[in-house]
């Protein structure tokens, strides 16, 4: 997958509002593989909606979104599963971790269907992010910031063309923000992937090719 394009897209809940002044909604936007984008937004402007549309689990929008020119509404369930395993890495704002599993189990749940990293690499990434001692802790017992780091490692455990991050560092301090930024950039570079990150203020400290205001 080389491009993600948005044409005249608008969440159904915003219908009839006219021009919102957004640089994304009701515009023609193209995200290219290998480039880094930041979408800065205020709360309630449809940031998480945008991610859920691009990840295929919500369809309540008008206009067109396309992967390599193909309308994503046309993708079958099987094709979406392929996209989620091979093309699009996604970190949801609410992280979607399973509290009854340990940190490592949560990550392995993803890695076992992608076989992208070894267990040692995963533990190494967790150590880099300062949660090396939490490998076997239940996620329910971790702080929000720790959970966010587990979710980031899990997101990077797959082959991808784009990494879609919904407020990846909202609960992280500057040090960890920097580590996350470096880790994401390295993984993106290794795979030649594009990065699309959203933020309501606390930006992940990656170098950005283009910034959009939502």
């Amino acid at each position: 997958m080389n491009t993600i394009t948005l044409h005249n897209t608008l969440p159904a809940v915003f219908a009839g509002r006219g021009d919102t002044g957004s640089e994304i909604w009701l515009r023609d936007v193209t995200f290219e593989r290998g480039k880094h984008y930041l979408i800065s937004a205020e709360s309630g402007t449809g940031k998480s909606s945008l991610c859920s549309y691009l990840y295929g689990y919500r369809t309540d929008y008008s206009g067109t979104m396309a992967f390599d020119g193909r309308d994503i509404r046309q993708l079958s369930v099987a094709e979406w599963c392929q996209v989620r395993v091979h093309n699009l890495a996604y970190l949801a704002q609410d992280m979607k971790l399973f509290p009854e599993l340990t940190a490592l189990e949560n990550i392995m749940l993803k890695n076992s269907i992608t076989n992208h990293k070894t267990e040692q690499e995963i533990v190494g990434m967790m150590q880099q992010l300062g949660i090396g001692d939490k490998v076997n802790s239940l996620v329910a017992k971790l702080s929000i910031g720790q959970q966010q780091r587990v979710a980031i490692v899990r997101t990077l455990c797959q082959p991808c063309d784009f990494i879609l991050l919904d407020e990846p560092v909202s609960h992280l301090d500057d040090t960890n923000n920097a580590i996350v930024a470096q880790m994401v950039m390295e993984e993106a570079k290794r795979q030649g992937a594009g990065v699309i990150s959203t933020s309501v203020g606390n930006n992940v400290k990656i170098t950005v090719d283009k910034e959009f205001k939502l």
Partner: protein
Amino acid sequence: MSNTSNNYSSKHLKWKLLRKHISPAQLVGFSLASLIGLTIVILAVQFHQDVRPIFNDEESFIKKDYLIITRSVSTAGTLLGGSNEFSQAAIDDIEAQPWCRKVGKFSSNDYSLYATISVGGAGGGAMGTMLFFESIPSEFIDVADSDWKFDPEKPEIPVIMSRDYLSLYNFGFAASQGLPQISEGIVSKVPLDFTLRGNGHNDTMKGRIVGFSNRLNTIVVPQEFMKWSNERYGSGIDRNPSRLILEVNSPGDVKMQRYFDDHGYQVAGEKMQQGKAQYFLNLIVSIVIVVGIIISVLAFFVLMLSIYLLLQKNTKKLQDLLLLGYSPAQVSQPYINMVLAINAAVLVLAVIIMLLARAYYLPMLQAMGTSGGTIIIALIVAVVIMTLISVGNIIAIKRKIKALWIQQS
């Protein structure tokens, strides 16, 4: 190492996640209900299979929908010289009844007949007795044509004999005279001579027993032989039959019974009673099977509700698994496996219980002279029912999970 990687396999982790909220009580409830329903159904089917041979006396040469009727012999009738014969008008009337398909007349020999049986081979003695023959149209008799014919050029008389006669010999005569009991197979090979006398002729012919019947309480010969012998040895007087054989739609028919009562006809043997008993057997088995099926259907819905509840409680987890890239098929697999395991266990248990129950009642049936029917049909019924239930469960699970694919905003 392999243990570690096994602990982190997608299958293991999925099950660890999704088994939450599984209610053992609900599953046990379903399993029990399903087990009871399935056991009732297959036990009823099996019992029917096992009991049926008692009602269908296995006679290959006469079909089961045939009845033999006579007129009641009353003392008054005998004294007043009333006839036991069926007039042509009476026969036509029976033939016109809706329950009757076909009527055949019994004809008897109109000459003197003497039968001799050689016992114990060349050195043994011979037993002889006055005897009689009867015949019915060949279409009522199901014996190979080559066995059931008579050729005056090579006279040999094929005979179907009442099984009672053999019993009478074996248990009455042979036992008291110290003679060996003989089987049907041996009797068929015993040299049998018939001496036919009348009309100035006196001939001896070989006879051959081609079968034994529980229902033809007489000695039956082919009709062509009867016709030939009556012409040769008989007086030439045409007499009405005293017995009729009827092919009927249903031996248990109430209207037919009423007709027989009104006209003073009697049905030979227990066929009518058997017909009724079989009708009630079928009725009772059908009722039991329906009850079993209702219980099975209810059990099916209990499991469905239980699974729906489980999926409902695990909705968020299932959706999150789908977001990780697990396909709906992968996400449904743990539940499908669980259902299949339960259903397979229920199937095996139901068959075991059925076989145990059968082992309990079979000796009673054996005392009645049957060794039971096949268990294949009950097994097929069990597998078919469990397959239908499993397919229903799987379709429901898949549909439910597919419905989780698109989330509401």
